Each structure stands twice: as C-alpha cells, then as structure tokens.
C-alpha cells in the first residue's frame, strides 16, 4: 500500500490506538522555551512527576529575551524571572539548557536545526505554533500548548487524531527575486487563514526541491498561518548535506544507517492525498500582506483590494476591519504604502540566507530618512556567520541596527515594541492586530523586500534593487 510522508511518520510513532480514531503518538524530541514551559513544570511538581526522558528535550530562551545589552541582567524583572525559571526547571529536571551567553543560543526553530537536534523521520514538538518549521527536514513537527508540554515531559506521548493530507505542488522554477517567503505567502493567501485546518501539508514539486534548507524552513514555518499545525518537505540530498556534521547529528556508521532510513521516508509515487492544490512558481511575484490576517496578501506590483469586490459578506467584513486597522485605502498601489519601521529576523526569516539577500539589496545604499530598521539574527551562529561574511558592516552602513538573537519584533514580548500607529515592513510571520505593539501595523514580506522598503521608505519591489547588484 502506498503511503505519504505524513503517513509514514505518523504510523511509525503510534504507540497505541483508542476508539474514535485517537492515537497515542510517540514524541521523540521537544524544544522548550521560557513562555510555554513554566506551567508545565509547575504541574509536574504539583503531581510529583519526573521527566520521563530528559535527553529528549532541549531548552533555550528566545521569546522574552532582550536583543540589546546582553552583557547586563535582563532589565524587565518579569522577563528576567521567566528566563531564570527556565534555567531552574531545566536544572532541576536534568534537561540540557542553552543559556543566553551560550554560543548556541537562538530562536528555538533556528537553534534546533542548527544543532542537528531536528532530524528527519522524528516527531518533534514545542510550545510554539511555528514548530512546523522543523518539517522542512521531513520531521513530523507541530506546536503544542503548555498542557501538552506537560504530557510530553511526563509521558513522551500525546493523544492525537491523525490529520488529513494536503499536498501543495509548486510547479516550475521561481523567477529571480522571488523566494520561499513569497511562495508561502501566496499559499496562505490561496488556502485562506483556516483553509488547512485539520490537514498536514506536504510541499512538493520542482520549486520546492530547488529550495535550500533555509528556504524550506521559511516555507514550513508559516503552515499554521493557513490553519495547519504541520508542514513537511520530503528529505533529500539537500537535507542530508545540510545536516551532516551538525553537533547532534549521527556520526560515522550511525550517519549512514540514519540516511538509509531517511531515504525511505518520501511519499510513495502512487500515494493519494486527501487534497491537492497547485501553484505555478513561474508566475509568482514578490508577495506582501496588506491586512491583519496572513492570508490577506497582494503582489507587490498590485493594489490594496476593495471589499466591494469580495466574493462573500464574511470576507468583505474581514477586509473592511483590516483596512480600517491598517489605515489603508482600497485601490491604492501597494508600493505607495509608507513604512517607518523595518524588521528583519524571526524564526521565519532570521537565517543566514535571509541576511545575505537583504545585505545584497542594502550594499552601498542607505535607508530612507525617518526609517528605523532592525536586524535580529535568528541565532548566535547566524550572527557569527554573518559577521564573518561582513554582512553586519553592510547593515550598519545602511543605517540598520545589528542586534542579539531572539524573537524580538515578531512577538513584541521584550522591549522591541512599536508605538501605536507605527507601520512596519517585517519578515516575521503574523500581521495580527497589535502583534508588533499595541496599535502597530505589520506588513509581512521576504527579507529582500524588507531591505528594499527600508531604502525606499515605502513598500518596494526587491527586483528593482537586486537586478543592479
């Protein structure tokens, strides 16, 4: 019987089956961070439980950590207490914790893959909805709540219902200046913010095969923005080459055995998916969000849409609300949207390739007067690599601030927060109301467009800048 990648991952992790289609799924690994773990550890203490398999966990603080003055204690007492609590809990329960001064520190979804903690064929969870990022490796990875964190810590299993399968086929080659972020924004726009609820997505097709691991992580990262907890890309030579030699990846004969296993994972040719959608990569134009839901996207060359043209009343109401919050007029060209802030970073676009392409746009240029621009590398490893390549100098010379790793303006839990009404060109994953600060407005885009918009002072087509490089 032919199986999909998701079927294979799921089936090999079923510990027991219950009535009503519920399975007990074995969880190989989990990442912990300071926000969603404290209540889980508190519950373990309350019930007198131990962590079943401490080696299955890796803890790192990212959400509430400051991106400046890391040589000093965290200024916000509540954030400091939260980060200290993660260290205390990790120590008490025997879990490996990456501290703020550790060279491995970074955003969970950047650090995990970098360390080789993320491997194909495994199940991996984290109390963060962007955990699907790890699906780029052919890892069954999904976000969970704090209660589920407690389950995994104590039992190493979760009670789950198997999802339906959805294959997103991306045909053809991406045109120059169009990247993984543009694919996923277009996919979310096509599926809708709830279009993939109950489905596990597999991204497939020539345009996906051609993506680097960084691009695949960007892609899988935003699966939740279409409602899906899980996004997958089948592992291949690109995956193996990226992982080989990572600190926690298997070595020697173990590596060979692992790769042999991983080669069996891709969906069988005749496997049937519950749903499929097709995207023509050759027709893709750089994408940008205009609204307050990540499915509200437009071509950078296009116009802000008019609710009058919406297919149904519900969509029109959602559009009207978004336009009002965003302070935009229907029909205005997207490129006329003036931005005062630019953020390059996050678990979506805080990796070395993202910084490289942004730096390519910014080289020998200056950001527009009045624009405040920030680069927050996704991890210390990314930061060091970028510095070795001289990218930090390009960003600084262009007028960007060069910060320390963390979630920063993607979630605005630390002191990186925008004032009400501020408008930001952002490489993050959510444009929800207040996401970057109460009353602040977010436009989601890829790193090249964010860099181009910083230079222009308004949303700009990165292809106008990349071509000259």
């Amino acid at each position, binding site marked *: 019987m032919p199986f999909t990648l998701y079927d294979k991952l799921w089936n090999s992790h079923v510990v027991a089956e219950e009535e009503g289609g*519920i399975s007990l799924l074995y969880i190989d690994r989990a990442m912990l961070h300071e926000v969603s773990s404290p209540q889980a550890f508190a519950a373990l203490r309350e019930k007198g439980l131990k962590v079943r398999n401490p*080696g299955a966990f890796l803890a790192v603080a990212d959400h509430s950590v400051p991106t400046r003055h890391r040589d000093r204690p965290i200024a916000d007492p509540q954030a400091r207490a*939260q980060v200290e609590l993660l260290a205390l809990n990790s120590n008490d329960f025997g879990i490996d914790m990456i501290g703020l001064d550790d060279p491995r520190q970074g955003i969970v979804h950047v650090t995990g893959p970098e360390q080789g903690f993320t491997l194909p064929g495994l199940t991996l969870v984290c109390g963060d909805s962007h955990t699907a990022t790890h699906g780029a490796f052919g890892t069954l990875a999904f976000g969970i709540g704090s209660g589920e964190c407690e389950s995994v810590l104590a039992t190493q299993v979760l009670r789950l219902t198997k999802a339906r399968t959805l294959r997103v086929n991306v045909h053809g080659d991406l045109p120059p200046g169009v990247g993984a972020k543009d694919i996923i924004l277009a996919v979310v726009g096509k599926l809708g913010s709830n279009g993939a609820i109950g489905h596990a997505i597999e991204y497939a097709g020539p345009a996906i095969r051609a993506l680097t691991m960084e691009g695949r992580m960007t892609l899988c990262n935003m699966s939740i923005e279409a409602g899906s907890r899980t996004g997958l890309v089948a592992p291949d030579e690109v995956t193996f080459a990226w992982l080989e030699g990572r600190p926690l990846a298997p070595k020697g004969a173990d590596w060979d055995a692992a790769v042999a296993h991983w080669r069996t994972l891709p969906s069988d040719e005749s496997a049937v998916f519950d749903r499929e959608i097709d995207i023509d990569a050759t027709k893709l134009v750089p994408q940008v969000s205009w609204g307050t839901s990540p499915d509200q996207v437009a071509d950078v060359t296009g116009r802000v849409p008019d609710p009058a043209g919406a297919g149904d009343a519900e969509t029109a109401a959602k559009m009207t609300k978004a336009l009002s919050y965003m302070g935009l007029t229907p029909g205005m060209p997207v490129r006329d949207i003036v931005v005062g802030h630019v953020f390059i970073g996050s678990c979506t676009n805080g990796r070395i390739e993202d910084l490289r392409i942004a730096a390519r746009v910014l080289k020998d240029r200056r950001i527009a007067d009045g624009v405040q621009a920030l680069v927050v590398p996704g991890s210390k490893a990314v930061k060091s690599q970028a510095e070795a390549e001289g990218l930090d100098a390009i960003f600084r010379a262009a007028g960007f601030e060069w910060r320390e790793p963390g979630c920063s303006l993607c979630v605005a839990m630390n002191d990186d927060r925008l004032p*009400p009404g501020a408008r930001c060109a952002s490489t993050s994953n959510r444009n929800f109301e207040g996401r970057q600060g109460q009353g602040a407005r977010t436009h989601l885009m890829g790193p090249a467009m964010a860099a181009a918009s910083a230079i222009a002072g308004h949303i700009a087509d990165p292809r106008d800048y990349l071509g000259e490089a």
Partner: protein
Amino acid sequence: MQPFTTLTAIAAPLVEADVDTDIIYPARFLTITEKKGLGRYAFHDRRYDGQGRELADFVLNRDPWRHAGILVAGPNFGCGSSREQAPWAILDLGIRCIIAPSFGEIFRGNCYRNGMLPVIVGDADHAALLSDANAGARLHVDLSARTITRPDGSTIAIAIDDGKRDALLNGWDEVMGILNLYAGTIDRYERDRRTRLPWLTR
C-alpha cells in the same frame, strides 16, 4: 481539571472571523508565568483603552453579556499561537463553552485540557445560536446528552468523540490517565524503537 457536565449561561456574540490568540491574550502579558487569574488580560486591547478604561462597544463590557458563560464566536476562533494563556484567560472570565464554525486547532486542543468545551456547529445552527446570543438569552449545554438547548426548547447536537467527552465529564487528568493506562506500552515502544533505530539514541 474541573469536570464539565452541564452549563446554563448567557451566551455572548463575538462574530468576527479570525479572532486570533493575540487578540485573546496580547503577547506583552506572556511574561507572566502563572496560569490562574489571567481573566483581566482576556481580550485586553478590545476591552480597554490606553488608559485602562472599559471600551463600551466591546460585547463583554455590556450587560447582560458581561456575565456570559458561553461565547458564540466567528470562524477560525483562536487561530495563531499555541499560547495556552488564551483559554486560561477566557476560563478565568467564567466562560467555559465556545461555539464557532471553526477553531484554530491548537487553541481547540488546549480548551479540552482545561475543562472547556469548544463546539463546532454548521452555518444554520451558528446563525440560530447567534440570534439567541444577540437577544441576551441563556443557552443550556448538556455534554452527557451532547446537546445545546435553545430558549425555544429546540436542541442542537454537539459533535465530540467519546474519549474527549468522557475526559470532560469526569474531569480526568490527561497525564495521570496516560501513565495509569499506558506506562508499560510506552516502555515497550521505546525499547522497540531503540532496536530498530539504534542511531537515534544520542
């Protein structure tokens, strides 16, 4: 976990689509490491202005919905982040049942674990329950019978699998339940997995 058996309460209408977890529980309150007493932050930026004054047009600031125990919400309610602070905050407001055409998946899963009942209904039932909510009516939820009873006495079915229903009805603790039932099964699975994939053990 507090068992969920029956609930008779005022239902508040909150119809907009995609009420995300940042609307339900703004991220700047996520440095709080407690799970109790979060109701004051629920829907914070919809409920209060910059000075902390109540915004009169938000449904939960108006009577009778200020005392709601049920929420009739729009599609994709609770989309976005996995933060369990979202259901904790709603629960702390005294709301234990949310009815919507669809939910963010992680949010929905989090509800069950906190003795809260998320109910997915079709368009016609949703419209009927919304009109009851707009009228300030009380709904009666009976999980054992799997029904929501409207003020006119008609009933709407609750679709829920037996396992989730039994857990809610009895207030079972998920973790203790798994350990009691499956500790040995998990041991066997782990031994087998180590044999099949020896490279996996770090």
